[in-house]
């Protein structure tokens, strides 16, 4: 079989230069750098904006005198689909019903917000928070003190500008 040879001509300088492509790329970069409509968030330097419906780790509301608002009615552990709330009720020194033990296992929690929805005294809330990292797993079982000390905003469960989710 005869060998067929094809001679390729070397491309011209204009076609092989990377300068054009590089400048094109840099044009895009610079355009984005100067674009006032940029969508990149400078997290963590700049705080993230969360939806008012965001459901994150819980928060327990407190009375002015520092007692938890919870009356240990037992509705949140009953309604909780993940079974992550442990509640033991008792009587405090003023004869009121209060939670002796109130623990939420945030690992088990599916953040459905039903505990907040069912609470008759608006004590337990899911919160607008997502920075939950811990070094040990057991730190994810939040006890009553920790829930009371959380200070992030609570979830609204619905968007006030769009109450019907349309």
């Amino acid at each position, binding site marked *: 079989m005869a060998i067929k040879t094809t001679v390729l001509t070397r491309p011209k300088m204009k076609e092989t230069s990377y300068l054009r492509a590089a400048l094109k790329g840099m044009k895009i970069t610079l355009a984005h750098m100067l674009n006032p409509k940029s969508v990149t968030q400078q997290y963590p330097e700049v705080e993230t904006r969360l939806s008012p419906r965001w459901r994150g780790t819980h928060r327990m509301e407190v009375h002015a005198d520092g007692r938890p608002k919870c*009356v*240990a*009615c*037992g*509705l949140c552990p*009953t309604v909780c689909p993940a079974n992550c709330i442990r509640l033991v*009720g*008792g*009587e405090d020194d003023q*004869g*009121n*019903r209060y939670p002796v033990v109130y623990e939420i296992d945030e690992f088990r929690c599916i953040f459905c917000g039903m505990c907040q929805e069912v609470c*008759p*005294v608006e004590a337990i809330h899911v919160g607008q928070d997502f920075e939950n990292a811990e070094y040990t797993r057991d730190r994810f079982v939040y006890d009553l003190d920790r829930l009371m000390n959380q200070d992030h905003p609570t979830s609204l469960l619905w968007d006030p500008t769009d109450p019907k989710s349309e």
Partner: protein
Amino acid sequence: MAEHNSTPKDDQYVNLVVDDVSISVEKGTTILEAAKQAGTEVPHYCYHAGLSSPAQCRLCLVEVEGAPKLMPSCTTIVTEGQVVRTDSDVATKMRQGVLEFYLVNHPLDCPICDQSGECDLQDFVFSEGRKHGRSRAAKRVLGRDDFGGDVLFYGDRCVMCTRCVRFMEEVEEKPLLSVVERGNRSVIDTFFDQGLGDAEWAGNIVDICPVGALVSKDFLYKARAWDLEHTPSICPNCSMGCNIDIHTRDNVVQRFKPRENKDVNGHWMCDYGRSRYEWLNEGKRIEEPLSTTSDGDLQTSLNWEEALRELGEKLKSSGGTLKVIASPLSSNEDVGATVRLIQALGGGEIVFRSATTSKEVPLPGFKGLKRTKYLAPNIEGLKVLGAKYVGDEKGSGGLQAISQHTEIVLVMGDRLEDQTEKFGSEAELLIYLGSHFSEALQEADFIFPINTFAETSGTFTNCDRRVQKFSGSLEGPCEARPAWSVLNDLVRIITGSESSHNVADAFNQLSGISEVFAGTSYSDLMPRGFKLKHDPPMTRD
């Protein structure tokens, strides 16, 4: 049972129609009870099957064809051919109106009310009340009052059904409660400083209160009604054998509640019985079979198989007489298995001790119901099966003969709290079958974990020789077994006979042991137990 099976004559029965269901009920039945038999629950507060009916709550009003107005079903007696409508427009509208009135002063504090979940007001308003109340008037506020005993009174929640007042008057016959004031100011109260402290059965008013007005101090805020598991059982605190439900949550006993048995306790149980359950929640359980080596102190844990085989061999080779100290909480099956073990070893005796009180505490309004002198459930069962009562009224002493017994001593359930570690040092073999560790029996040759009565099924024989069944409500340590099962396995190892695999087998073996149990069967125990027919000569001690 046989006495109820006499065929009723036709003229003792009345035919009527309730909500399109034709039924035939006994003459003298109220419409409310007839409706219940027809499958309709008519809402009611003041009516209670164990009390008189004042027909004052006005909630059980039903339409009776031909009657000029709605009739209170709790006091109206059925007549032949009556047509009753509980769900007609007139009746439901009436009930809705009555319920709205009930809520005028009700605080709606269900989240903190202990009755929530088992509350008649909650249930009835939910099923047929208005969605929203129309009253804008300020609610009456009374706060809470300590009635003494175990009873707290929340006046705001009261619906003035007066069940509690009638219970104290008619059943306990100590009229310590009364309605004070009139009209919408009326309230239940005790007499000045005299509370319910003297009453021995006042806990029942908490049970019969249809709302959360009367609550138990012991149970206050402890658990929610819907979290509790109910297990039918028998009260272990005297030999009356009151039928109870054990309410547990997360494997912890929360309270005892009476369960209806018209042959024994009706709807009631005494305060003494209902308040003594804490020992069931105690720790310090024996977790696994233990044996002491020949040099004394060292206790090694064994698995059941090797422990029983080792003990079986020892029993076979020693072959001495067996003296048993049983607990009065032992079930009939436990005692039966002990008797079989004694028979297999060729001789021995069973003794038991029990705390007693000097006098019985009867409930005047319910014939036959009392707190007995013996404060343990199976005294009669032990006696029937040949055990001997020893010791004093505190349930201590009486063991001199056994502590010097040189052959085999078996302690079953009794913690021997009055004895020292020297107990049984003379014995060749000391065996302890117990649920909790015992100071005196630390050095027993064999220690076996057994279940308490709340962790297993079995039967108790009450003071009237009625055999009644209880069921397991708690989970014990995973290695614990019922005493009858351990003893029957020992008998199998010694004699090679068939062991019993379940509690029904163990019970049915009793008929071979005692002629009193001849012809009885475990399947006959439901629903209300049966009386032992044949009476052997009573052994007095």
